[in-house]
């Protein structure tokens, strides 16, 4: 895995090398030899199920968890060696509301900045601007216990920005939020990125990772299984891009056609899928042709309109899913040609792109949620 200085020779803002954490009395490592580096201005996502070690990794980087072995640094400051300095460089938005209930929203922001040594005039200026930006100005003097989960989340993000951190850590920023609040958080993350803020976020939501993160690290059982851009991660999944075709055959058996489709350049394997046609269709033959990834997942193709009506007695619809090594669009024409050669009629074509969920399944053999 690529670690360390990036292509421009820039020192990474966050660097983690061979990081290990074993909690007291635990039998296994919560974080088990993780390495990665985050560039300045990047949104970096740690994706994995609960218990994967994401929060522990963030905990170490934000000095709340003591590492067992390895190295973790922020802006070149080793968080284990100089936690006091590191705390000035990071900001955390935790999963749980930990706002100071004895203080108003504005005071939460002001005191946070005071802890970090921001001068009084600057504190006030930043608080006013952030309250406005986050739509909190009218409620600035309210106490946090009157706030909903989404509003508290907003306040915590605003609070985190009060001391102008080098890196903002968002731990499961949208877990438990309603869809509108979730979209608000997403927008804020994009805004912050546009401003050049470096963000590390953890999530168990693939959509969120794919949507927000420049690069995603997939974690499971304390290990980092893969690390790349969402596009590269899904591209790296041979046989996960699919092309689903529906054809109407003129009474001839489908085996030849399927065989020929499977022989096309760029097709890894082919599988017959449940047909919307009349009963008594050909038995599925996916098992026989199954590749190493065993016909589990793939195409997101929504059910297309079914083939011709069942009244056409001799006509049978065949649906086949082609698992591809490369891009799907280039194969549409060759597939159409093969179908035409068999005097069959192409009735539907659907392209299925792999998701990060597929990447996770390919890496771990199980679903994320």
């Amino acid at each position, binding site marked *: 895995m690529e670690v360390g200085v990036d292509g421009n020779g820039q020192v990474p803002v966050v660097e983690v090398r061979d990081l290990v954490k074993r909690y007291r009395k635990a039998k296994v490592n919560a974080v088990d030899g993780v390495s990665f580096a985050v560039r300045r201005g990047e949104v970096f996502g740690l994706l994995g199920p609960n218990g994967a070690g994401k929060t522990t990794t963030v905990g170490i980087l934000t000095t709340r968890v003591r590492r067992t072995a390895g190295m973790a640094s922020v802006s070149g400051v080793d968080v284990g060696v100089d936690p006091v300095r590191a705390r000035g460089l990071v900001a955390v938005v*935790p999963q749980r509301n930990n706002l100071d209930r004895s203080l108003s929203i504005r005071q939460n922001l002001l005191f946070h900045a005071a802890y970090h040594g921001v001068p009084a005039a600057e504190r006030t200026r930043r608080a006013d601007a952030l309250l406005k930006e986050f739509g909190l100005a009218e409620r600035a003097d309210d106490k946090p216990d009157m706030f909903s989960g989404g509003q508290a989340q907003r306040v915590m993000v605003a609070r985190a920005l009060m001391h102008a951190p080098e890196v903002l850590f968002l731990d499961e920023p949208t877990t438990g939020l309603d869809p509108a609040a979730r979209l608000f958080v997403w927008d804020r993350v994009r805004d912050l990125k546009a401003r050049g803020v470096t963000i590390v976020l953890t999530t168990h939501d693939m959509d969120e990772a794919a949507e927000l993160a420049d690069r995603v690290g997939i974690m499971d059982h304390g290990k980092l299984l893969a690390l790349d851009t969402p596009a590269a991660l899904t591209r790296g999944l041979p046989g996960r891009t699919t092309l689903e075709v529906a054809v109407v055959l003129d009474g001839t058996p489908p085996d030849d056609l399927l065989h020929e489709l499977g022989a096309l350049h760029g097709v890894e394997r082919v599988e017959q899928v449940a047909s919307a046609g009349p009963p008594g269709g050909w038995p599925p033959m996916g098992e026989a042709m199954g590749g190493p990834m065993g016909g589990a997942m793939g195409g997101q193709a929504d059910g297309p309109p079914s083939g011709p009506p069942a009244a056409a007695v001799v006509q049978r619809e065949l649906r086949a899913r082609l698992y591809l090594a490369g891009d799907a669009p280039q194969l549409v024409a060759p597939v159409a040609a093969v179908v035409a050669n068999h005097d069959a009629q192409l009735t539907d074509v659907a392209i299925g792109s792999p998701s990060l969920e597929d990447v996770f399944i390919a890496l771990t053999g199980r679903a994320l949620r």
Partner: protein
Amino acid sequence: MTTTTSPAPTATGPRRAAGGPGRAFLAVLWRDLYVTGRELPVFLAQVVLQPLFLLFVFGKVLTDLGFAQAGYTRVLFPGIVALTAFVTGLQSTAFPLVIDFSFTKEIEDRLLAPLPVGMVAVEKVVFASLRALLAALVMLPVGIWILGSVPWRASGVPLFVTILVLGCLVGSCLGMIMGTAVPPNRINVMFALILTPLLFTGASQYPWASLDHLPWFQVVTACNPLTYVSEGMRAALVPEVPHMRPWVSVLVLVVTIVVSLAVGIRLFLRRAVD
């Protein structure tokens, strides 16, 4: 480099002002003082009512009815000042820490402030001691109000102040141990099992020396740090009442503070950093 009108950071934007752990410490302490200051009447009612009733029932009602000698108030009052300092200190660290660490997590923002985590623990002790100091001093006017007058002598002031400060600190340090060691589900039981015995084995309501004929209880009370606060207070305010030598009180209190602060910080760190 472009500058933004927004206060939020840019990667290359202006850096934070130099703060330093000392400044962060003061800001954290200021937060606690600010919150207490805003709720001052509630705070005083909370900490003053119990000693007020003790003074009233034992010092006024019982003596007026003839069940206690008139001179008893001279024994009782210094003990009540000691009790107030000790218990207020203990409660001012123990309760908030249990709630913060187990439920609200409010303390997290301060644990992430740029100062050593141990200093956050020290701040809790300093703050709790200031609360205890205030509560104990309020007992002077309360005593005058209920009893008519309180024992006071100018030559005893240096010892009074010394014992008062040590009493506040020892309560706060022990409170930190309780607040960080007690699991949240045991909080009710532990406070009943620890706080109540502490209240009545601390020689607040009786001079320790007079327990000669109850030797086992004299041993029990000698194990309670509050005893040394009460005895020291009597040495300062009512030296004619038999009391321990002041240097014994001061020595035991200083040693207890040092040991319990060290243990308390250790336990605090264990709760604050995994």
